């Protein structure tokens, strides 16, 4: 089972080899409410860690999604562009946003683990 890490911006990151799949956490989708639009990055776009590279909009507001680590966008989830509510229904699974070929796969270990993310949620 592949390892899942988190960011303080409420994204989850799953690493498979050198490819990281990125989504928003259940906390994030709940806080946003009904998601009605998703804007995903261009394939091949090179992103720096913490760079805004996707937008998730609920009926209430637009929210940036940041690159959790540096890398190149290799895949986007077309299903959520057609059906943005999928991000609400299955944020940690079918509602993933994009995949990055990481510039440095070891940087993955610098992200929050489940326990650290749970601690962060406990302080909100």
């Amino acid at each position, binding site marked *: 089972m592949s390892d899942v890490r988190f960011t303080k911006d409420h994204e989850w990151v799953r690493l498979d080899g050198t490819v990281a799949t990125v989504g928003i956490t259940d906390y994030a989708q709940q806080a946003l*409410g*009904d998601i009605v639009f998703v*804007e995903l990055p261009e394939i091949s776009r090179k992103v720096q860690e913490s760079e805004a590279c996707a937008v998730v909009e609920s009926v209430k507001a637009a929210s940036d999604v940041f690159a959790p680590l540096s890398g190149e966008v290799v895949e986007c989830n077309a299903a959520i562009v057609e059906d943005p509510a999928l991000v609400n229904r299955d944020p940690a699974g079918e509602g993933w946003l994009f995949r990055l070929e990481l510039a440095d796969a070891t940087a993955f270990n610098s992200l929050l683990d489940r326990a650290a993310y749970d601690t962060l949620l406990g302080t909100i």
Partner: protein
Amino acid sequence: MPHDSVENALKTTPLDALHRRLGARMVPFAGYAMPVQYPSGVLAEHLHCRSYAALFDVSHMGQATLYGPAAEALERLVPSNMQELKTFRQRYTLLLAESGGILDDLMVANYGDRLRMVVNASRKADDYAYLRAHLPDNIRLEPHEDRALLALQGPLAAAVVGRLSAEAAALPFMAVAEVSLAGTVCWISRSGYTGEDGFEISVPAFKAETLAEHFLAETEVAPAGLGARDSLRLEAGLCLYGSDIDEGVNPIEADLAWIIGKRRKAAWDFAGAATIRAQLDDGPARLRVGLRLDGRALARPGAEILALDSSVVGEITSGGFAPSLGVPIAMGYVRPDLATDGTPLLLSVRGRQLPARIVPMPFVPHRYFR
């Protein structure tokens, strides 16, 4: 926690405990802790209102009574025919500044020997001060901070109200009455802010929760928060004060010229009349319009409106997803020569130019009970 201290400073409505029991997400709005949504979410609440009936707490709004011969005096500050307003009828009007700018939009109802008003929460203190300063001494303004205001909106609202009062259910659109609902005398109007048939019900604060619980126990009724209230009113093409209209906008620009009474347009005897008359004669510099985006991306307030040659021709003042239509819609101001239905324009969002076109409002037809 900073968040808690902010919330502690907020005023609460008489339904605060009920909202929290229902699992509402509370947000600060105009100095009040208000429910933005309940667990079912904005989309479900919005669609429930369009199909069945939704209950909104709008107790943050300002309720006040004007005692004395107020209709004639009020005409100095609003452009509507107040003297012709029949007993037990209500009118939507605008409180105007001497500049012709809009100080507030409000409902005024004629209860025979008095006028009752409902004004925006964010404006009530300023409105009351302005009215007291400008109305003659024989008119007395009394705010009703001891009352709640419930809005029951949707095609089945009348069926629900009819179980408590046949008289209330028979009121036509924009009629008002004092009726007893579940043992409490309420001030009820057949009106709302959703485009649907419905009622706004003023109830003494200490009876508000009982009445709200009564409505919520009916199978047709679900609670709805400010999120759905905003998306419903946008679909209905109704202005939000502070976003679509404010003191920097006059009624002609806001496409609210219909509010100016015929007699008032002959006499031009209200605050800002000279400016408004000139705008009507010469044409305004900008006009409020509805826009529909071609794609799925949303345009939010503040987004620039561009002509096809990319020149800036206006700005979005309200925008979001229209749950009843499944597409993004917006309201904004454009140069009048571009305000014709069907005109293609571009909306600048995150550095992109989203194609949109002018469409007639309301976006979703009104279904008032006339």
